[in-house]
């Protein structure tokens, strides 16, 4: 077997523990994967694949990316002098009374909570157990209640999203009329992956981009989709303020950028994959509600965020993040680094020197 790339990399070993903490925070910021000791990186790629499956995956994927995750150049360049904040302030779920299996809304019957920040309103609910980030996958029966802290559209490029917002804005200025800015071209679209044998029919090509009007001041829970909807990544916050990324493993109708932040949802019978919650229409109930102050100047904040993400606005003052201020990564995993019998360690890889972390 060839030597994985990262064996040769010595730099990680020179990192100080403080830097490692920072790195973990940055990993979280950048990839949304919750760092937890050594485990969060190693399992992702050094999975124990049966040889049949290993042969179909590109070797670089199994080993190469691991190194890239770790040594990602621009990540290292941008390490700012910051410490993850608030990790210690977050109450550990273990400190709470044993979870009572009760359905959050049904049993409390308190509708006003929908408009409030959930964090701190501990009235009893289930929680996502500690340590999910270290587990490859686990199914949680729940029900668990969260509030939606952020929705990102990841099926469309950020430039595309920006363009749609800007178009909607300029159009609302011109008596609601739309300038046709794009025409179907014979060539391929900038972002199109070339499928083999795409069929394009004479006039059938003349499709116009669908577009939406929107209004920031629009009351109500939902705005019209302003960036379009393909595939969303959502930041969910539980009653303790812990944040989890969630992905649509099957499309969910109302989940889209523009959904009022602070919307309360209850999940049951859901899978958590390396700390990331997989959402399906059958496992989610969207209660609505929201937190008004999170939604002020939503579109402007969204545009700023999109621009910063793609580097259009570099020297922006300290990020005024989409709300809420992205909860600093709570390191859910505990320090059970000696959990040797973790089943997913590859025999070939488990002797790697990650203890340094």
């Amino acid at each position, binding site marked *: 077997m060839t030597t994985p790339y990262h064996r040769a990399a010595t730099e990680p070993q020179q990192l100080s523990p403080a830097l490692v903490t920072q790195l973990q925070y940055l990993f979280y910021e950048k990839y949304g994967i919750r760092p937890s000791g050594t485990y969060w990186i190693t399992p992702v790629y050094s999975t124990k694949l049966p040889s049949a*499956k290993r042969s179909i995956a590109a070797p670089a994927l199994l080993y190469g990316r691991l190194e890239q995750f770790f040594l990602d150049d621009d990540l290292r360049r941008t390490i700012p002098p910051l410490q993850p904040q608030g990790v210690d302030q977050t109450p550990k779920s273990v400190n709470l009374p044993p979870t009572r299996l009760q359905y959050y809304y049904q049993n409390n019957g308190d509708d006003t909570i929908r408009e409030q920040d959930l964090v701190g309103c501990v009235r009893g609910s289930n929680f996502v157990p500690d340590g999910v980030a270290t587990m490859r996958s686990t199914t949680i029966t729940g029900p668990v209640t969260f509030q939606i802290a952020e929705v990102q559209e990841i099926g469309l*490029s950020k430039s595309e999203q920006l363009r749609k917002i800007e178009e909607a804005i300029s159009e609302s*200025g011109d008596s609601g009329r739309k300038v046709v800015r794009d025409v179907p071209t014979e060539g391929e679209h900038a972002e199109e992956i070339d499928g083999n044998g795409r069929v394009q*029919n004479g006039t059938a090509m003349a499709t116009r981009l669908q577009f939406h009007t929107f209004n920031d001041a629009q009351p109500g829970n939902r705005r019209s989709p302003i960036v379009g909807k393909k595939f969303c990544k959502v930041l969910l916050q539980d009653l303790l303020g812990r944040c989890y990324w969630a992905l649509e493993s099957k499309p969910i109708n109302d989940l889209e950028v523009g959904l009022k932040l602070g919307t309360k949802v209850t999940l049951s019978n859901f899978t958590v994959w390396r700390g990331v919650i997989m959402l399906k229409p059958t496992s989610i109930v969207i209660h609505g509600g929201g937190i008004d102050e999170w939604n002020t100047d939503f579109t402007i904040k969204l545009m700023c965020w999109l621009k910063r993400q793609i580097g259009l606005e570099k020297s922006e003052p300290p990020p005024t993040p989409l709300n809420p201020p992205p909860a600093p990564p709570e390191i859910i995993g505990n320090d059970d680094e000696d959990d040797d019998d973790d089943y997913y360690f590859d025999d070939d890889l488990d002797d790697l020197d990650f203890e340094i972390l």
Partner: protein
Amino acid sequence: MKILCVAEKPSIAKTVANILGGGRVTIRNTDSPFIKNYDFTYRFPQPWGEADVTMTSVVGHITAADFTPEVRQWHSCAPAQLFHSQVVVEVADDKKNVARNIKSESRWAQGLMIWTDCDREGEHIGMEVCRIAKEGNPRIIVKRAQFSNLERDHIRRAAQHPREIDERLSDAVDARIEIDLRLGAAFTRFQTLSLKDSARKLENALISYGSCQFPTLGFIVDRFKRVQNFRPEHFWYIKVSVNKDGIDVHFNWKRGHMFDRMAVTLLYERCMDNGSGEGRIVSMIRKPTSKWRPLPLTTVELQRRGALFLGMSSKKVMDIAESLYTKGFISYPRTETDQFSDSMDLVTLIRKQTVDNNWGDFAQNLANSGIRHPRKGKHDDHAHPPIHPVAHVSPPAVDLDHHKVYTLIARHFLACCSEDAKGETTEVVLDWAGERFSTTGLRVIERNYLDVYPYDRWTSSQPLPDFVQGELVPLKRATIEEGITSAPSYLTEPELIQLMDANGIGTDATIADHIETILKRQYAVKVPKGANGRFQQPIDIDPPKRGGGTGRGGAAGGRGRGRGRGRGRGRGGRGDRGGHDSEAGGDKLKGGGGDGQKELIPSTLGAALVEGYDEIGFDKSLTKPFLRKDMEAMMKDICEGRKTRQQVVRESIAMYEEVFQRANGQVQLLRQACRRYLDR
């Protein structure tokens, strides 16, 4: 009985005279070196009957609108005053001899038949001729010939079935001329005078304004900024491939791709974990498909396709089409109609193409085996049929460029009359641990119209192996792939034409001229295609110099259609850009390097003006197409009798005056934008 016939240009007069005169035509000179009078006899329908005919012509518009002399100078009045100053319409200085000829010829004639081109501008020129003729002979009876090509039978039929002249069309043109004059002059003076101190380059510059030019420029700047602001973004996706029957088949992820590595990684890992090394075929669906033959050719499509397929500038394509029409090879090239009427004898037209070396056989087969009536589009201008060939021509009767355009028109026409291309698509969907992947294949079964229309490409993909629903296929590879978005390209002329058309800027016939104008004004520059990202900033070139005396400014807003009808204001000259297509490319059908395939980059001045006006933030922006589109709609209202000329002029002027006042009040924003771009 003596009848005077007047065509729009000398070449048409000559052709029509020869057809009606049956070759027995006497030629007389006139005061104008360009215009000849052709005498012959012809039998018109009653009440005219057998008549001595004089066929003559004008050279485009005879009269011109201008302000009275006291406000013609740059500083003679406040620019805003030009919205209401008196406008006089007079015979243009260089057209005096033309008018004299008509006046004297009409003196002895009982009837006048107008043979100008059948559209708005033509109707307007017809009315001008009519007024001048009535000065010479108030009792002259006026008829108008309705024709759309110069083919012999068609012209004879037109002479036998004259109609009345439509004053409403002419009124619409009058309204447009007046509005363009006022707007052009007011805004041009405003821009030129108020911006001259904001940058050294602008001290002596002429910063002309036209109500079509600015939205057109707006498109170029908009696209430029999008390229400028583009930042590449990484995306990831899962790709699987299988091998069956010795064929490698790649499947694409149904989710497309995602701009988030974590998401793709997790979904991939989940597949790896949950799935086996095999995928399950969910479905394999075969569907008949067809590639549709093109719609009948309109002016906009001719310009776009000419630019795209032949690599010529749209202006050049139009000039050539104009010349082919005048020589009688094609029908009138200014038309919005994209449907052939059922009564048209298409087979006869096709038979004329059977002699061609390249597509003669195709035409022969088509004529013998029966044609399929062309697809019908949604547009009909009720004046002209779609552009089609009326007589066959091949080199050396015409030069190479003419033949290229003719070839496009002829092939397009034959394609319209053929069957759609037929094929079959196959879509295979594969499921791997809950993630769906698909692949499609295309098999072309009958090429049909594609055989005569090599500009369209439609080819079979690699054949797919036979899959069975529910079948488990071992995956050969399943990988995460990474990609990066690429910048949009700068605007090309074919795209710009489509944008202008879609947004209702200019009429189909004026589009090429507007593009030409903004290039001439140095608001934008054409660069060779593939300049991707090479221009981080607008191109810095010197704007045109301000002329001495007349402060009339760029009144050429939506001036007629160019087409050599220049009203002799010194701006009529053909731009020095655009005419120099190097057609060196070896490929006869796709001349890559021509003007049509170049990209448009704004100049610093162009970008500054658009940005400045955008910052002013109008309700209806000058750089967006809406104002102009409204005006265009009002022209149509005049033509269809819903509004009068005076009403439209009043409303349009009021609309623009409001915008003008706002621009005037916020002129510092324009100045700042110019300083930003031009004084670096």
